[in-house]
């Protein structure tokens, strides 16, 4: 501990700390532009100059390490003169366009100009003008305003890991940009809007929408991934205008993914459903709540009486709240059905009985930073969970190594120590081979049940490297299964093997739940209950379900087995869709009940580390739309179900028997009872499924700005170029993809990242939604 004095106050500081950090901690404000606590020190703006005793000239507080006994004056004449001088230079080239600048009111330059700027300019020469680069649909540019602090450049280098912005030219001619036309592709790109101290980088979707001071501000949680980032939702006269990160050092620090930042645009989408609708003789008719609820209740009761409750099923979006999950399952169980699920990405439910508690990360998000080794299986962490990935990236920069076993060669923003890319069935073989190598190394018996999947002749260098890494007991390691593992057609086998491997190696096994999935488990939105086991989402299609209750979902686009569910929904007697969007389920639903969505409803969000946070309503839903829990409560009333008399969300939350922090409670990893499937070759390709970052839920698919980013390619069947030439296919060739009798058409894209023998076809596209989910598809030229 060092003792220093700033402006007469005695303060304590750590060795190596910069002056500005100590001042910030003590609440002493030193003006700054380029300094940011999560970025490296550039010391290029000189706004933070302060006087230091015995120093001959003012020193930059952001780049001056403290020394014992240092005496600092941040507001002495020398300091103020230096700061004013810097300010005058910065303003020389800055346009006086504050009235038409979106940053106005929250501009660090504007604020400091008030404090340190002159009231008139002495500069009469020409000002510089800079051309604006087009950075894509999210970030608007006005580079004449740039003060060259390089925060955005350092962000690319240090945080997002892809250096896209740069400072080209020199001196007066320096410009910040991409130099060549280039839409920025980082999933964290929106953060440069917050970082930019001036109006050079602003939000495109928010352009000219409101002034910062006239908006109301509500703290909430972003619902699209399992991190549950803390956010501020800002509204003007009831309209959601913008979402900003709320600092939360346990979860998102000061950052926010683009997905969470811009998903609010769907709240204002023209597709919102504002009145209940009933389909009569094929025509949609608007109606009032009483009529709609009565007809839903009648329909449900009649069908249950006629066909039995086992022909009734409910699917709820994992982005819903704990309270909605609870009432949803209570309603269905009240009607006698256990066919309840939220796990839309689940393709293989054979291991349903093994879960002791919710799939979860198994450690605090923060702790990812301190791991030495992580193996990701079936996980494109960077796009799946941008905030978790950022933590892991920090670990890598500190020396950790991250390896992947993936069915598609995804690009990461850090180096991977092992990149084992193979077909989905090859992934099983890889894990099995690693188990074999590791058992040899540790002197264990090779687990019998895994033997069928092992192929000692195909053990490769990557398997050896991973086994060696797991054998190293001195490192803090983890094994994490991601979305591609849920979407894996033989996911139960993959999970079981991962469990065997993790146990053998003595490392933590984590799963990345879908969005608010942990809350869904806690609230009972899974098909298992104490008494009985119902059907999981992966099995509902085969059971001739005739009555469906859908909550915030579009199963044909959300689910691993979307094609099967679409067929079942088309075939159903009654489909009730509680939805925020008129277009959701429009083709197969019989009744649509207009629901609130995120930003309009309150509730609880439990993230993958088990932290419960509160979602708040920043505004009211449009028209007659109502909060989900109120709709479910009202419907229960029409159904005469007892136990729904809750008046507030907190009363519902209190009723949920929330077991403490979830541990990844996966039972033993035995594979007895599972058979190895052989995958045919030729025209039959193994299907690789993923759900792309901006197509994962009904809300995201209606965010127009996100839909226009480079992360949202048009639908296509991606195959390896060698594979394509063997099949006689060229880029953009139209092909037919077939599973049994069903086929869809789509163009081919040649892609080196797809392993041979496979076709990469993500879910979430209307054009290919009809194709049933399966391990393999037949691909022929159409």
């Amino acid at each position: 501990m060092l003792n220093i004095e700033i402006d007469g106050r005695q303060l304590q500081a750590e060795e190596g700390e910069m002056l500005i950090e100590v001042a910030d901690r003590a609440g002493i404000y030193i003006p700054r532009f380029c300094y940011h606590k999560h970025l490296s020190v550039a010391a290029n703006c000189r706004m933070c100059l302060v006087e230091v005793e015995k120093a001959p000239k003012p020193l930059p507080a952001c780049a001056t390490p403290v020394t014992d006994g240092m005496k600092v004056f941040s507001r002495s004449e020398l300091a103020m003169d230096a700061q004013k001088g810097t300010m005058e230079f910065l303003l020389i080239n800055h346009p006086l366009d504050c009235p038409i600048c979106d940053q106005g009111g929250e501009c660090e330059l504007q604020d400091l100009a008030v404090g340190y700027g002159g009231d008139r300019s002495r500069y009469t020469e020409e000002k510089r003008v800079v051309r604006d680069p087009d950075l894509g649909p999210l970030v608007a540019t006005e580079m004449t305003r740039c003060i060259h602090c390089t925060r955005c450049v350092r962000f690319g280098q240090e945080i997002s890991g892809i250096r896209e912005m740069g400072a080209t030219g020199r001196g007066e001619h320096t410009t910040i940009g991409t130099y060549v036309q280039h839409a920025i592709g980082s999933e964290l790109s929106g953060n440069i809007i917050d970082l930019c101290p001036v109006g050079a980088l602003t939000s495109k979707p928010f352009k000219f929408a409101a002034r910062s001071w006239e908006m109301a501000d509500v703290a909430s949680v972003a619902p699209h991934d399992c991190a549950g980032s803390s956010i501020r939702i800002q509204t003007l006269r009831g309209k959601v205008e913008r979402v900003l990160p709320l600092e939360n050092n346990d979860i998102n620090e000061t950052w926010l993914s683009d997905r969470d930042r811009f998903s609010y645009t769907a709240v204002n989408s023209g597709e919102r459903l504002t009145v209940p609708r009933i389909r009569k003789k094929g025509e949609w008719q608007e109606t009032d709540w009483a009529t709609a609820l009565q007809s839903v209740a009648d329909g449900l009761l009649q069908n249950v009486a006629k066909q039995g409750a086992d022909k009734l099923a409910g699917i709820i979006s994992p982005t819903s709240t704990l309270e909605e999950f609870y009432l949803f399952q209570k309603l269905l169980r009240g009607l006698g059905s256990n066919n309840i699920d939220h796990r839309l990405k689940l393709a293989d439910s054979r291991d349903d009985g093994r879960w002791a508690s919710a799939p979860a990360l198994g450690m605090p998000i923060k702790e990812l930073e301190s791991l030495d080794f992580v193996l990701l299986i079936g996980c494109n962490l960077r796009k799946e969970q941008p905030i978790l990935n950022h933590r892991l990236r920090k670990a890598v920069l500190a020396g950790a190594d991250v390896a992947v076993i993936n069915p598609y060669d995804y690009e990461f923003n850090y180096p991977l120590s092992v990149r084992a890319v193979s077909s989905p069935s090859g992934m099983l073989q890889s894990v099995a081979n690693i188990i074999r190598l590791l058992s040899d190394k540790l002197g264990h018996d090779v687990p019998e049940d895994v033997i069928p999947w092992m192929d000692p002749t195909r053990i490769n260098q990557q398997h050896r490297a991973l086994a060696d890494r797991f054998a190293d007991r001195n490192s803090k390691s983890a094994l994490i299964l991601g979305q591609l593992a849920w979407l894996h057609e033989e996911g139960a086998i993959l999970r079981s093997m991962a469990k065997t491997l993790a146990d053998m190696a003595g490392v933590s096994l984590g799963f990345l739940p879908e969005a608010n999935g942990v809350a869904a488990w806690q609230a009972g939105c899974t098909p298992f209950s104490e008494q009985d086991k119902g059907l999981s989402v992966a099995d509902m299609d085969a059971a001739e379900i005739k009555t469906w209750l859908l909550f915030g979902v579009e199963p044909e686009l959300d689910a691993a087995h979307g094609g099967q569910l679409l067929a079942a929904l088309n075939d159903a007697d009654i489909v009730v869709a509680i939805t925020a969007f008129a277009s959701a389920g429009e083709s197969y639903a019989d009744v649509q009940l207009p629901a609130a969505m995120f930003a309009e409803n309150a509730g609880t969000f439990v993230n993958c580390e088990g932290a419960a946070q509160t979602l708040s309503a920043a505004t009211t839903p449009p028209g007659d739309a109502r909060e989900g829990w109120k709709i479910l409560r009202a419907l229960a009333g029409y159904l005469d179900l007892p136990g729904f008399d809750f008046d507030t969300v907190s009363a519902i939350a209190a009723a949920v028997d929330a077991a403490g922090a979830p541990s990844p409670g996966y039972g033993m990893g035995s594979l007895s009872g599972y058979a190895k499937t052989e995958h045919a070759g030729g025209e039959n390709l193994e299907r690789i499924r993923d759900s792309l970052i901006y197509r994962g839920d009904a809300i995201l698919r209606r965010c127009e700005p996100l839909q226009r980013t480079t992360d949202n390619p048009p639908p296509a069947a991606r195959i390896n170029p060698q594979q394509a030439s063997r099949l006689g296919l060229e880029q953009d060739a139209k092909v037919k993809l077939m599973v049994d009798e069903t086929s869809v058409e789509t163009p081919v894209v040649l892609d080196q990242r797809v392993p041979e023998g496979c076709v990469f076809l993500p879910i979430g596209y209307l054009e290919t939604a009809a194709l049933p989910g399966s391990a393999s598809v037949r691909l022929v030229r159409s």
Partner: protein
Amino acid sequence: MNQVLSQSVRDAITRELQKYPAEQQQSAVMAALRFVQEENNWISREAMDAIAEVLGLQPIQVYEVATFYSMYRLQPGGKHQINVCTNVSCMLCGSSEVISHLQDRLGIETGQTTADGRFSLNEVECLGACGGAPMLQLDRDYHENLTPETLDALLEGLD
């Protein structure tokens, strides 16, 4: 490896890389840019991208270096580059006459290239030869104590 860079440039970069430790390969960027310019007379976008790929950099990092230094030519220019110093010493000793003489003789302004593609005329800052002011650099050579006559003689001898 990519095809934009010639074999000799790639060899030169490989040799250059040996001067730097493995994690500092990006240090070769300046030399790499110079090799390309020496061979092609200028550095294209494609060449910068190729250098980025070879050195494991993001393209923008190469653009930053290339645009920072005025001696990297990012546009095609004349076969001969005439760089006239117009900094203080040269200015006091008559660099403006040197410039106007060259402008008249070549029929171009500074910053331009003759129609036949033979000469580019540039103004540059101090080249560290103030003792011989006014001076210019023709391609790789310095020429000092210039007069209209020595300038004419200089240009006459060129192809």
